[in-house]
């Protein structure tokens, strides 16, 4: 299947991003396709269920990790008040959960700390994806469904 795609691209001389992405995916590969699919499903389903916007950042968070995570949260797109950022820095062994002002009402800091605790337990065992998915599940369970109040 893949060879036919590349063959077609070579014939009509068009740039085929799929062929390139396969190569790039192999050079700097953090997660397998299966893990990426699980992460994608977890993020999308938690966001859909709760009405909040869960995003996941994986990478280095400078020296004051909290400040960097909050800065990232302001750039997380959408309405930041309802955004929840999970920032994981495996190199520094730090995970930060940042909730916007509206999200913090449904996700108190204590619930976030509980989710963070379960995440760090899994991370310490080397299971990044499992920890993230469990943390997301806890956060979305705690946030519950959005309440549609009449204004």
């Amino acid at each position, binding site marked *: 299947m893949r060879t036919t795609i590349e063959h077609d691209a070579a014939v009509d001389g068009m740039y085929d991003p799929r062929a390139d992405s396969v190569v790039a995916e192999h050079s700097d590969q953090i997660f397998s396709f299966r893990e990426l699919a699980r992460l994608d499903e977890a993020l999308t389903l938690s966001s859909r269920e709760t009405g909040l916007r869960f*995003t996941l950042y994986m990478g280095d968070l400078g020296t004051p990790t909290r400040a960097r995570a909050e800065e990232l949260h302001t750039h997380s797109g959408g309405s930041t008040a309802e955004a929840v950022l999970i920032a994981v820095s495996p190199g520094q062994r730090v995970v930060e959960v940042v909730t916007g002002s509206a999200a913090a009402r449904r996700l108190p800091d204590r619930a976030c700390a509980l989710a963070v605790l379960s995440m760090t337990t899994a991370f310490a065992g080397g299971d990044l994806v499992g920890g993230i998915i469990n943390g997301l599940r806890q956060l979305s369970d705690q946030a519950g469904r959005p309440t549609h109040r009449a204004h």
Partner: protein
Amino acid sequence: MCGAGKLGAVTVAETILVFAGAPLAVILVLALLTIAPGVRNRRPRYKPGQPWDHAPVWYEPHPHSGGGHGGSHAAIAGAAPAGPLGGARGTW
């Protein structure tokens, strides 16, 4: 089994083939089936304490199902930090 069919003597080569070759073949097939999938997608597994030299990645939910009340208007309004931030922090 009739009078004409007389079973010939089994040679040494045939004996080795049946009693050593066949089990070895079975073992090799099972070993290949066991080892091959792991070799194909071998990736360095994360272990706590090792350096993380991957580029930062930001994963987002699918946009049409994302939270908030959507729209570009919300994106513009959300550029400024909105109120106090909550959350938690953990290390491992």
